[in-house]
């Protein structure tokens, strides 16, 4: 009997969150292949949109997959390539970043970037009583980053929270460290930092520690890296909360896709993941010490 092949196309592990994505995809592959011997999961990773488009072609033409789970590097450029997979008669699940044309995918498992920004803004606004000076460390200039920042700025609009400056830290902890160092030299008073991503948070923490200004401010990160979750769990004043944007969503998407082939029920629709706020109280539910992310 022919195996059912499920192709999974995701970005390569070039930063922490993507690393978590890779990890969860690989774990799900093992789990699924063990549970269903007639299913073969094939993971392809890409370092850019063009390469991902190549991978999609290869999954169809040489691997002859039956279903595709794709987390698009970027929405726009991958819309047409994914559409072609669909037109080849494959079942398509899109994860996290929606395509630019409606109606292509069978299943959409969505993260919610504007919501991540909004929730973070909401927390900071509340913590500071609607008044204070903050700095923002952005990611790599992409749609994801843009959506998060927009969501954040919209939320704090009208309050007395002043954004001293925003700089790109490229979802990289070294850049986070250096940008924060420079913010600290520049601004004598900072009430809060929105780091948007936990890789950046790690760098920010060290910079603040080095400047000995830990009591002055707090940081809101994002994604749910285990190191940060641990800090939240331990009640670290510097990182009171974290906003989830779990890379495990890829595993969820893979599971849903498998259901299409192993169950009789109709599998379709949209599954929107919230931007859960991790606090000291609920942190232990989100702490996975064995995960690499």
């Amino acid at each position, binding site marked *: 009997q022919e195996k059912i092949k499920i192709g999974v196309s995701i970005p390569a592990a070039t930063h922490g969150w993507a690393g978590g994505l*890779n990890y969860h995809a690989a774990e799900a592959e093992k789990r699924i292949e063990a549970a269903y011997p007639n299913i073969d999961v094939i993971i392809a990773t890409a*370092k*850019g949109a063009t390469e991902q*488009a190549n991978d999609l072609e290869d*999954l169809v033409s040489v691997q002859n997959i039956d279903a595709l789970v794709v987390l698009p590097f970027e929405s726009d*450029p991958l819309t047409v390539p994914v559409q072609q997979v669909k037109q080849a008669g494959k079942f398509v699940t899109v994860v996290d970043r929606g395509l630019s044309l409606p109606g292509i995918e069978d299943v959409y498992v969505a993260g919610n970037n504007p919501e991540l920004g909004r929730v973070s803004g909401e927390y900071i606004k509340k913590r500071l009583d609607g008044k204070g000076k903050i700095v923002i460390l952005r990611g*790599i*200039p992409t*749609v994801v980053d843009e959506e998060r920042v927009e969501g954040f700025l919209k939320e704090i609009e009208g309050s007395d929270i002043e954004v001293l400056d925003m700089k790109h830290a490229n979802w990289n902890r070294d850049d986070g460290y250096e940008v924060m160092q420079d913010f600290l030299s520049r601004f004598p008073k900072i009430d809060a930092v929105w780091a948007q991503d936990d890789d950046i948070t790690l760098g920010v923490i060290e910079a603040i520690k080095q400047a000995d200004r830990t009591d002055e401010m707090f940081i809101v990160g994002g994604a749910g890296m285990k190191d940060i979750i641990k800090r939240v769990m331990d009640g670290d004043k510097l990182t009171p909360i974290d906003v989830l944007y779990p890379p495990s969503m890829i595993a969820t998407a893979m599971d849903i896709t498998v259901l299409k082939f192993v169950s009789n029920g109709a599998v379709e629709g949209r599954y929107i993941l919230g931007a859960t706020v991790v606090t000291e109280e609920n942190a232990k539910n989100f702490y996975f010490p064995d995960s690499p992310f």
Partner: protein
Amino acid sequence: MSGLERSGQNASSRFSIDFKALGPFLALVLLFILGTSINDAFLSSGNLSNIFTRSAFIGIIAVGATFVITAGGIDLSVGSMAAFISGAMIVVMNGLVETLGPGLETVLIGVVLSIVLGIGAGAINGLVSTKGKIEAFIVTLGTMGIYRSLVTYMADGGTLSLDFEIRGTYRPVYYGDLLGIPVPVLVFLAVAVAGYVLLNMTPFGRKCFAIGSNEQVARYSAIHVDRVKTMTYVIQGICVSVATIIYVPRLGSASSSTGVLWELEAIAAVIIGGTMLKGGYGRIWGTVIGAIMLTTIGNILNLTDAISNYLNGAVQGLIIIVAVFLQRGDWRRKKSK
């Protein structure tokens, strides 16, 4: 002292030269054998067509890079330049939809713009490095940052998307075919042939070789060194715009992450093909095969999931080194010399 002349010695050296020219080709054949042995689907016409179509981008850019490198220069800005040109094309074409509609004119204007920008960007690289007497490495590192910033700025940090109606008109440029051969492959072939003719059959190409081999000699031979060098960057720019013209209809968008690291791939294709990084010797066909080899390696890695994805890069690196080692053909000779 008169009389006797040397002889012999020629035969053996001629043989090794032939082998050297065949080197990249042999390495490619070995890669194809490897691919087939891993997965039968490798040789399917669909897959082969995919490989050749994909290698068109990098291949076309690498043809330009062959000129630059042969003349002793280097261009690190090609990836950013491609992103910038794509972005500008998209902005302008989208803007024209209202007045001209999503028809051929709009696309043509986009194409012309692309070429103009390519020539301009190349000329900047060339003029700043020759007139400013700044190492090309630095100049193109600088313009790499500049072009990339410009596209990020145009896209406001996000993505520039081509109007979906224009995509319909423009689509065949990437997805169409002529007598079964995909358009990008035809364009690649045309660029390669043109590049070959220009590099090997015209005075201009001859001058590139001479400058890369010895600038002083070139200058003493009444060659306008700065002018020729600048021209190589312009050619590189034109190649980038041609690549962009077939790239835009594929993904229909441009962002700050478009074309990242293409410069490295293009240079690698050139060097794999046997062109010398220090200049003075260039080989267009080698470059073409180098580009196809790089794409094929990526494709082969997608043929199997035996290798952990994390190790893809390692396998790729290893294959590149081994392929170049095999194609050098020097392993057959003794050390000597």
